[in-house]
């Protein structure tokens, strides 16, 4: 990666109408599009960190505010992953973007997977950051900070059951390559869960992000942006080193 990160202030706010719902987003950067689905940290954090600014150096980042989060209303019930995915896919269509990769964080990773499953002709690749789809080790994480603003019931409403058979049925037919990133110090979801994605998804790559907890973008922004950029740039060939190892020419 070259150049400096796009500052949070350089992202601009926008909104697009999808049916009865107004979907808010922030966007920044130029180049190939990248759709972002935030996690439990909530819309106040999305597109505000260094990592997305790094990604926006060479691509057009569109970070959505999940309907039913932040200032985006929905109704009395939290919509599930499939409905949220369909709404955001509609938003990308309304923005005139035809095909794109999707990056989902934590509970947002479930939305990203539903998005790829329901719209295979639009989603070219998927990045799952600290995903909660498989929760075999920590079904209801004891590592959650009681003082943190997470609402686990709401999160579970998006992610579905601990090993959701509904989304699981779609995984083996996913066409898009999937990158799964989990931190070595994650107290919400164990890095041991990564193997389940590799076993369930035909073209899946699991990476342990060392010395990072659940918030990979916050804990290791450069590392996060590097591996995501490599994956989005090279696809499955990101497993081959494209960076020069020459010390001095």
């Amino acid at each position: 990666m070259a150049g400096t990160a796009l500052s949070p202030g350089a992202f601009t706010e926008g909104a697009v109408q999808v049916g009865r719902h107004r979907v808010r987003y922030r966007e920044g950067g130029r180049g190939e599009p990248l759709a972002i689905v935030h996690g439990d940290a909530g819309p106040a954090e999305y597109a505000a960190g260094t990592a997305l600014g790094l990604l926006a150096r060479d691509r057009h980042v569109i970070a959505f505010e999940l309907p039913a989060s932040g200032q985006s209303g929905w109704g009395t019930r939290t919509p599930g992953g499939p409905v949220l995915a369909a709404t955001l896919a509609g938003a990308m269509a309304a923005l005139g973007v035809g095909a794109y990769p999707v990056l989902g964080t934590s509970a947002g990773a479930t939305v990203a997977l539903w998005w790829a499953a329901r719209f295979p002709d639009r989603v070219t690749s998927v990045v799952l950051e600290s995903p909660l789809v498989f929760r075999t080790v920590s079904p209801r994480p004891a590592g959650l900070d009681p003082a943190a603003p997470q609402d686990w019931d709401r999160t579970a409403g998006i992610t579905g059951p601990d090993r959701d058979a509904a989304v699981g049925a779609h995984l083996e037919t996913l066409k898009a390559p999937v990158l799964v990133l989990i931190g070595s110090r994650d107290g919400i979801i164990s890095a041991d869960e990564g193997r389940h994605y590799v076993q369930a998804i035909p073209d899946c790559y699991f990476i342990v992000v060392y010395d990072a907890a659940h918030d990979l973008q916050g804990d290791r922004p450069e590392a996060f942006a590097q591996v995501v950029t490599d994956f989005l740039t090279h696809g499955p060939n990101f497993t081959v080193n494209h960076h020069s190892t020459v010390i001095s020419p």
Partner: protein
Amino acid sequence: MEIGMFGGADYQHPDMPPGWPRPPRYWDPALARQALQDGMEMYRLADELGLDFVTVSEHHGGGPGLAPNPHVVAAALAPQLTNARIALLGPNVPMNNPVRIAEEVAMLDLLSGGRLYGVALLRGTPNEYLTSAANPAESRAAWEEGVQLILRAWQEPEPFGWEGVHWRFRTIAVWPRFLDPAGPRVLLSGNSPDSVDFAVSAGCDLAISYGGPEQVAQSIGQFRAGCAAAGRAAGPGSVLYRNFVYVAESEERAREECARYGFGSMTQFRPATPGAARAWGEIGAAAYSGPGVMAGLLRKHGGWGLPPFLGTPDQVYEAVRGYHALGVGAIDFSFGGFGLPAELARRNLQMFCRDVLPAVHQLPAAVQAAAGAGA
């Protein structure tokens, strides 16, 4: 209690000046063949005489011992041993590719029929950063990361990648796997308080080298307290210690023979040039300056003196018993090498195994319950 032998090919040349690294121009093929033959004979003798394990280690620049890769020596040893297991003490993680270490240890497990005693994933002695591409100031962080990478590589059933601070691998799939799915016993350094804390957090056993009783007691106390807090059992069976030993018919004879050959003094491994001395000092200050056993050893500029396990069989047994009382469950002894003539090394080993080992084997090595083991 278990006893092992830290062995290897002890290459010596009559004209070679003391100092490290050793100039390669002092290489003599005939001397090298003899050193290797003597070293392998000592390993076979240790096996025959009933030692529990034999040790290989990693050292560069010609010494101590010809062992740039401990796994190569272990592969040669595996088919020659009948009873003793092989301890890898150990590969130096920051100086190597951690994935390759994971692969080679697993291959050695297969080659030896599952007879690895354990593997110590180490950081390397400070001087050896002169001959490594690794930055010594980053070696602690790189070591901790490399250890965690290796442990995960051994347990991960699917290919995975590692986006580290010091290492990046996009596809890791370690083959072979271990014959026992639990994998090998892993030991980490207990030579500083930070290292002990890391061993506790990683769920590994402790390896302490060359420290005196007070330092060893401090490390073991800290280790047991940490394990107890983590709800993990830790007793003598979790702690390995390394040092020199020399047994003779009398204390006077033992002292005289050790002093004559500098056995146990480590004086051969002082910096070879003034520049190297400054570099050693910088490495020590930058990377090994914390308290603990290693810091104490680095301050011993004038040599380490005589082996702390020295004298008659009774005296050596009492010294061993003293360390056992501190919570040491296994000792990795140097019976030779470091310039000690091969015939004296053999006699030392034979006398120890005949007159000391039977009683030492009676000392319990079982892991005790963690509860109440905090000191």
